[in-house]
């Protein structure tokens, strides 16, 4: 039987298309039904007719689905009509009835009339009361207010939660808001323990009742693991609950008009709960989605001019420990952590931010270069075994913006040897004349004519006078043509081989992530294909000078242009992370500033006096970056990435890969140690283990394979 779900919504004018994008990516069939109002008298418009919300006809219609999903929600507990029509479905509990998934359901005491009279009397979660919030809900995540509606947030302002999933016995940091109100405070639910006990005692048969009981607590706030963390919740606080065949789950999707345009989508940070709900409802997707992550610049070190807290040697030391851990993680999980190696260091810039430079530039201390070599050897060995495949990533061209980063790459220094290196005199710009071969008259083309092909277009080009490299090493390289692209890529491959990698495109994945996410446009995609690449990571505006766009489906002539989702714990402008929070850090220089996580100053105002503030920042950062990564995985089929050196600068050198332990283990600046690689990957692993029907640890090849499967 093919998986099939029914989505019920009130209006396409407030419909987030990520709902359906995820289902398409999972291969789950769906039907959209529209409620004619938010009240109990609403009718549900289905493809097979319009049925009253409480009708036997609707109940019969629903029985063809594995699950019915209620899409509407509100951030106003006083609202009197949002999804009241769904109250009848809470009593449709026969084995033939589908599972009902209620995400951030509006069941407040403000709803009266027919909603009240039809609400099951044995339902065990206390109905929120806008006049008595303190008595009916528990404030979550410190109880502070988000500055704007927390339900419609995208890639910033995360709320931090660590959730304990009881049946699975797994703790995971996932963004969680059960309900919220106009005060913009996130809340968890309060359990009526007497009713819950009665439900747990009652036998119940339905395919989704895995314990054979009418009630089941699915998830609660995870208890703290440190005395420093004083953010605790009462024992009757719940996050997710199964009432018979109805799943009461936290917020999953913003109720707002949001297109998943064919390049990118705004981050939907609560999608975990949709995936978890689908799994609870027994909706087995046709496809599981591969989870993988990339790094840009796996080996670099910041010189003293950037004012990092650690020396070159120390930076290489924490990279060594972290890469050793990441390689082991990849081995254990069967994933491959892609690394975009900064190329160009051999021929153009031997700074310590270049892979080649930190290895071989003799102006750097020998001890630093030795430590860097150990990191490099892990990467090469991991490349060979498939755990840390590496490809080129070049900031030394295009004015620092990579492929076609500028109209002309001034002072370009090319590689030596091979077809396009010194001393060969080769074209570096389009010929003066280009004519398609099938309309080229005989005898017109000049003696230096050559055939060039970019995609489906084949041209005969000639008259390269003033458009060749000469025999020298250095020249201004126009970046807008296939000749430049081939020269650049050939140099990249040559440098990768010289570094000891057996190939220059992430081994069998035939992929790399591009510097500044600039993939350069058609002429570069063509050149990359010629050198064996299957795809690269790319922003939608794929040149540094903003004159090109990737194709709508991000696949050009079979070549993948995988989307980009950065999950660093600092902004690129801040160069490196000062940790979870540092009052003196520049804008974007710590995690809290980067992602606007200081809700109501409940971190900054308590940092020096309340140890819990660090735990709060830790939770919010993990929730934020995990949700961005998960969104990229399930909505966009894109790629998340971080910069190890920048994101890991806040670790303790005594044990760089130690888990976060609050103020018990300090990193630089006297603030808590935090290893972004360890924490983020471990947390995503918890998510993957929670969702075995939906996710698996895979590789970029799996991502590209799946893109071809569902996008084409």
């Amino acid at each position, binding site marked *: 039987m093919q998986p099939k779900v029914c989505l019920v919504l009130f209006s396409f004018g407030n419909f987030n298309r990520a709902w359906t994008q995820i289902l398409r990516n999972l291969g789950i069939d769906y039907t959209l039904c529209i409620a004619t109002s938010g009240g109990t008298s609403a009718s549900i418009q289905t493809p097979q007719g319009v049925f009253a919300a409480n009708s036997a006809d609707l109940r019969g219609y629903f029985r063809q689905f594995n699950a019915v999903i209620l899409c509407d929600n509100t951030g106003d507990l006083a609202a009197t009509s949002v999804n009241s029509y769904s109250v009848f479905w809470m009593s449709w509990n026969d084995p033939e009835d589908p599972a009902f998934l209620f995400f951030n359901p509006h069941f407040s005491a403000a709803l009266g009339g027919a909603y009240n009279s039809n609400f099951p009397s044995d339902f065990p979660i206390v109905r929120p009361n806008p006049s008595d919030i303190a008595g009916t809900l528990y404030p979550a995540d410190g109880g502070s207010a988000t500055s704007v509606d927390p339900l419609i947030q995208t890639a910033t302002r995360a709320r931090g939660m660590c959730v304990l999933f009881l049946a699975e016995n797994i703790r995971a940091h996932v963004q969680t808001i059960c309900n919220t109100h106009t005060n913009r405070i996130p809340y968890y639910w309060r359990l009526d323990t007497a009713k819950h006990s009665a439900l747990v005692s009652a036998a119940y048969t339905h395919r989704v009742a895995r314990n054979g009981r009418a009630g089941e607590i699915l998830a609660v706030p995870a208890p703290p693991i440190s005395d420093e963390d004083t953010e605790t919740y009462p024992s009757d606080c719940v996050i997710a609950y199964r009432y018979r065949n109805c799943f009461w789950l936290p917020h999953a999707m913003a109720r707002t008009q949001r297109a998943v345009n064919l390049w990118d989508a705004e981050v939907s940070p609560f999608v975990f709960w949709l995936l978890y709900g689908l799994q609870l409802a027994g909706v087995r997707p046709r496809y599981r989605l591969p989870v993988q992550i990339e790094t840009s610049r796996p080996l670099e070190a910041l010189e003293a001019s950037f004012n990092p807290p650690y020396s070159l040697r120390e930076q290489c030391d924490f990279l060594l420990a972290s890469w050793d851990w990441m390689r082991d993680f990849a081995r254990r999980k069967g994933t491959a952590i892609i690394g975009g190696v900064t190329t160009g260091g051999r021929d153009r810039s031997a700074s310590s931010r270049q892979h080649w430079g930190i290895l071989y530039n003799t102006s750097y201390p020998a001890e630093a270069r030795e430590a860097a070599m150990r990191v490099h050897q892990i990467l090469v060995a991991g490349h060979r075994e498939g755990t840390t495949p590496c490809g080129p990533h070049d900031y030394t061209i295009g004015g620092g913006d990579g492929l076609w980063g500028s109209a002309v790459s001034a002072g370009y220094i090319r590689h030596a040897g091979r077809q396009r290196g010194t001393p060969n005199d080769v074209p570096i710009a389009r010929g003066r004349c280009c004519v398609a071969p099938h309309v080229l008259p005989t005898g017109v083309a000049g003696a230096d004519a050559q055939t060039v092909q*970019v995609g489906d277009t084949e041209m005969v080009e000639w008259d390269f006078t003033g458009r060749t490299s000469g025999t020298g090493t250095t020249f201004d390289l126009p970046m807008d043509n296939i000749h430049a692209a081939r020269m650049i890529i050939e140099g990249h491959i040559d440098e990768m081989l010289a570094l000891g990698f057996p190939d220059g495109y992430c081994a069998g994945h035939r992929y790399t992530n591009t510097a500044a996410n600039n993939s350069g446009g058609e002429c570069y995609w063509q050149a990359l294909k010629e050198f064996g690449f299957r795809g690269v990571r790319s922003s939608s505006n794929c040149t540094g000078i903003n004159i090109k766009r990737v194709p709508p489906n991000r696949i050009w002539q079979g070549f993948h242009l995988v989307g980009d989702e950065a999950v660093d714990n600092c902004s690129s402008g801040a160069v490196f992370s000062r940790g979870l929070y540092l009052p003196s850090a520049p804008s974007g220089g710590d995690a809290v500033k980067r992602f606007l996580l200081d809700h109501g100053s409940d971190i900054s105002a308590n940092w020096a006096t309340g140890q819990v503030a660090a735990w709060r920042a830790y939770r919010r950062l993990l929730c934020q970056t995990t949700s961005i990564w998960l969104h990229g995985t399930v909505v966009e089929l894109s790629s998340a990435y971080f910069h190890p050196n920048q994101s890991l600068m806040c670790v303790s050198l005594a044990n760089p890969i130690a888990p976060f332990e609050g103020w018990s283990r300090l990193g630089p600046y006297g603030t808590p140690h935090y290893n972004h690689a360890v924490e983020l990957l471990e947390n995503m692993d918890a998510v993957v283990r929670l969702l075995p029907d939906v996710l698996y640890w895979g590789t970029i090849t799996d991502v590209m394979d799946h893109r071809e499967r569902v996008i084409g």
Partner: protein
Amino acid sequence: MPLTPTLIGHFSQGDAQAVSRQNRLPVDATAPDTLLVATTTVDTTANRDLLESTATELPTLDGCMQYRKLVWFYFRAGAAETTYRVLARATDHNGAPLGAGWITLATGTLPGEANTWGRIEIPATTDGYYDQYRIEVWRTAGNNYTLTSKIVGVR
């Protein structure tokens, strides 16, 4: 019939057919392609495109040479008077624009009231076959509103 030497064949009426210039793959080359689906908050920022970019040289759509015409469907949630511009240009075979700037194919006031649909053909007359298009919208009165667009390419 036996397959003649070729890389590609297909079955038709229970028989294997070799693909050649005279016997092409039975694909529907006229089916339109969805090129863009986007939600735009229309504000007063002049020359802002459907993807909310103000980089004036950045196309909204690229690689469109195969399309004779684009059809822009939209649903506007607000009635605020809105100016739109449709710009286009050609690139060389490397994908590089032949020059800076754009040809203006259309400009004017975006038709429709609040909660109404619209449809604009690009170009309005003749054929397109441009490589790049930039489609800009900005309001000149009233309040911000949401514009949901879909653009399809017609061969």
